[in-house]
């Protein structure tokens, strides 16, 4: 009953979406505002309709309706309620529907804005948003239907179908398989919604960009309208990435936060183009330049969002053959191709209208440095994109080697792995370049700057950063990549502090405000600039942590008897005891107690453990972690003697400075919130404006 209700509203939403974009199109063609309004209402309706669908699945999950295949796959009787709710995005069918639900929320929200000044954009924004939504709904209805149920034939065979096949009865399993244990972590509960919110909210700026191209209103209006949408999208995507890193660190049991896995890269790629876009739109706003490039970046971001979902949902990453086994891969592939070609043809139609009104006047101007920043972001994107698709291409091209024996040695068709060493070597110099630009660009001026003018502004932070390098050399640091990295971090941090300081000082002198108030007022008046500085500061903190763990992580592994010890650097752990027991929620838990000593001094106790989930027959390794801002001691229980528990194998990682990464993530998000926070109304500024002392004089 509830499954049928959910499915019915899903189909109705699909039909409403199709009606919406057709009505929007006809509304323009026939010049009928009534049709456009009707399309707008249709878009508004998608969210309540899909809410019924999503709530239906949640109801089925919470109440253990295991006759529904999806419910059996991702939930079980022993799971607590909150996990049953979050199981909505724990499997393929549910997560696709969740994508559509969030998309409909953003699409509905955009209809509620004031359209008085941008009426001509409305039908096209509706069309683009609803075409995207329709595509995802199509997947949910025809390929990955989350409401499909189990049916039993008279011969006892179990089959799955949405509606009861003739001669069958409903089959209700006693229990479900339960959610993958790796997904039962708080980080994983919040991480996918954040990522998906980031993904879907980038559809809105893209829709406005397409509307601008179609209508020919190619000034910066669409950028001004979508500025906050883009920042919000970027905020969610950044949050999703940071939370994903934290989840990996806590749950995956390899002592790291980022493994350059294709699934991670899939989410990282739209973030890269989104970040490049956020920087380059400023050039268009300030100087009226790069209109074509901005269009290209938002098109890329949109298609990378779809491509990211495609990579993780099509099975193409496991094998090129898995791609063809389900209709979902080819459908995604077709949709990406179609939207990309359509967007590019629209762009080419308006290419001449989008030509710059002004030109770059100096190599060191801020716009020139921003362009360089864009090159580096796109460079990292190329490395990532190529690294992700190369194994698929290499495997697919095996057919050439098979057809032409002479080329068999070149096109082997062998599946290859493109792993972290490739990405780390290729992207490290590009990231270093970005850090350097992060230090220089805020000191440059729009239109015209020279090496001399930047040097004049940068010498103080530069000098201070060199002192940091000297201090690091004095304490014995000899790794040149670390010295370079920490110098860059110090330089950027000092530039930001210096900028804050001199602007606040200037206001303090001009207005006789205390420094803190002056800083607060400044940040309030130019939130984007100061929010940007805070974001940069967050990046610096994250870089500290990344350099720490990437260059100085150490590890050891050993088997020790009870009372035995293993040492790693300053730390020694002593194996005190191990207990193995079953829990009420269907786990077998092996929990060790180890004492931690630092330089021979007892500093605490850790409890590394291994949970084995009976339902899904999957183990989960949970590290015992001693966390400080200096370092993490990350202890894993790898193995133990099953009967006596008298000896156990531990793997220990020493992760220096890793917590700066999480702190940096927090500062980063804070900065984005500052930048995206709505500014005060201009009228308010008029009322509160006073004549400064300097101008009185």
């Amino acid at each position: 009953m509830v499954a049928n209700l959910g499915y019915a509203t899903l189909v109705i939403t699909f039909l409403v979406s199709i009606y919406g974009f057709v009505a929007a199109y006809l509304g323009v063609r026939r010049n009928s505002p009534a049709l456009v309004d009707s399309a707008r209402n249709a878009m508004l309706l998608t969210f309540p309709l899909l809410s019924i669908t999503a709530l239906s699945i949640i109801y089925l999950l919470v109440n253990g309706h295991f006759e529904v295949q999806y419910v059996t796959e991702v939930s079980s009787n022993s799971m607590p309620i909150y996990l049953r709710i979050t199981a909505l995005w724990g499997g393929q069918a549910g997560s696709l529907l969740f994508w559509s639900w969030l998309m409909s929320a953003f699409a509905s929200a955009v209809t509620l804005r004031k359209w008085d000044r941008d009426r001509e954009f409305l039908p096209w924004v509706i069309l683009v948003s609803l075409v995207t939504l329709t595509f995802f709904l199509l997947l949910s209805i025809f390929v990955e239907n989350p409401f499909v149920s189990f049916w039993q034939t008279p011969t006892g065979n179990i089959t799955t179908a949405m509606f009861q096949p003739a001669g069958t009865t409903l089959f209700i399993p006693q229990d479900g398989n339960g959610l993958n244990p790796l997904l039962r972590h708080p980080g994983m509960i919040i991480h996918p919604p954040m990522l998906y919110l980031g993904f879907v909210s980038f559809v809105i700026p893209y829709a406005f960009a397409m509307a601008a191209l179609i209508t020919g209103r190619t000034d910066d209006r669409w950028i001004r309208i979508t500025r906050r949408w883009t920042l919000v999208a970027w905020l969610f995507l950044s949050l999703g990435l940071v939370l994903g890193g934290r989840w990996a660190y806590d749950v995956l049991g390899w002592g790291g936060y980022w493994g350059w896995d294709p699934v991670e890269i899939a989410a990282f790629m739209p973030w890269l183009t989104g970040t490049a876009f956020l920087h380059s739109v400023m050039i268009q706003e300030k100087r009226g330049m790069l209109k074509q490039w901005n269009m290209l970046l938002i098109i890329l971001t949109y298609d990378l969002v779809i491509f990211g979902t495609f990579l993780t949902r099509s099975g193409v990453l496991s094998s090129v053959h898995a791609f063809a086994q389900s209709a979902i891969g080819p459908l995604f592939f077709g949709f990406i191709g179609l939207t990309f070609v359509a967007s590019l043809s629209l762009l080419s139609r308006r290419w001449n209208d989008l030509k710059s009104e002004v030109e770059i006047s100096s190599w060191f101007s801020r716009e020139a440095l921003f362009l360089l920043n864009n090159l580096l972001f796109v460079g990292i994107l190329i490395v990532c994109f190529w690294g992700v698709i190369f194994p698929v291409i290499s495997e697919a091209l095996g057919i050439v080697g098979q057809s032409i024996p002479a080329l068999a040695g070149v096109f082997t068709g062998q599946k290859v792995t493109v792993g972290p060493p490739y990405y780390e070597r290729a992207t490290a110099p590009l990231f270093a370049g970005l850090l350097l630009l992060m230090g220089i660009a805020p000191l440059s001026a729009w239109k015209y700057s020279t090496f001399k003018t930047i040097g004049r502004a940068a010498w103080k932070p530069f000098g201070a950063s060199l002192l940091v390098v000297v201090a690091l050399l004095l304490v014995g640091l000899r790794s040149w990549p670390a010295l370079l990295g920490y110098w860059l971090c110090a330089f950027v941090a000092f530039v930001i502090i210096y900028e804050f300081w001199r602007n606040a000082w200037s206001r303090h002198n001009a207005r006789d405000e205390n420094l803190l108030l002056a800083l607060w007022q400044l940040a309030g008046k130019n939130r984007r600039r100061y929010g940007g500085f805070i974001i940069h500061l967050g990046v610096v903190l994250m870089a500290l942590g990344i350099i720490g763990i990437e260059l100085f992580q150490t590890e050891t592994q050993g088997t020790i008897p009870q009372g035995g010890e293993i040492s790693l650097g300053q730390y020694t752990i002593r194996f005190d005891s191990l207990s193995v027991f079953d829990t009420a929620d269907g786990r077998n838990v092996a929990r060790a107690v180890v004492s931690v000593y630092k330089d021979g001094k007892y500093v605490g106790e850790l409890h590394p453990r291994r949970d084995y989930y009976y339902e899904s027959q999957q183990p989960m390794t949970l590290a015992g972690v001693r966390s400080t801002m200096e370092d993490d001691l990350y202890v894993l229980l790898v193995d133990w003697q099953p009967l006596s528990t008298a000896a156990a194998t531990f793997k220990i990682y020493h992760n220096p400075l890793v917590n700066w990464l999480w702190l940096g993530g927090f500062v980063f998000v804070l900065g984005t919130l500052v930048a995206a926070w709505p500014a005060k109304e201009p009228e308010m500024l008029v009322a509160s404006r006073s004549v400064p002392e300097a101008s009185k004089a």
Partner: protein
Amino acid sequence: MKIKRYLFGIMLTLLLGLLVAGAVSAQQPTPSDDQVNAIAKQLYCPVCENIPLDVCPTTACAQWRELIRQKLADGWTEQQIKDYFVQQYGARVLGTPPPKGINWLVYLVPPVAILAGAYVLYHAFSAWKRPIQKDNLQPTTTEPPAETDPSQDEYIHRLEEEVRKR
């Protein structure tokens, strides 16, 4: 007699030492876990997707790690062990594709694309860049506007923006 006792003491110590050593070697197999992991870290699980062999929790991977230990104990070098795994399970067990055949593309395409981008950017800069008339320049440093009111600038900027919007 004293010598006999002395010799007995030495023998006993040696025997105990051997026993202890035996016990230790039973706990810490040779080669050590760290030696095995140093090689396993560079290899990828042939079964699981994108998981390095040193951290893969599956039984199959534990067996492969034991295989590395055995090969090390037999005197194989790191390269020989890696070659053995490639021969058995294909090039996918390596963290990066071996540079031969079509695999060269993985290393060549990104730098060529980035250099091409840099070249395009350089040409675009050169084409855009015009000689600047010094009189037309804005203030070129980012000195704080001590003599002006920031809120006034902001106000003018907003006014301009509002006018443009209408």
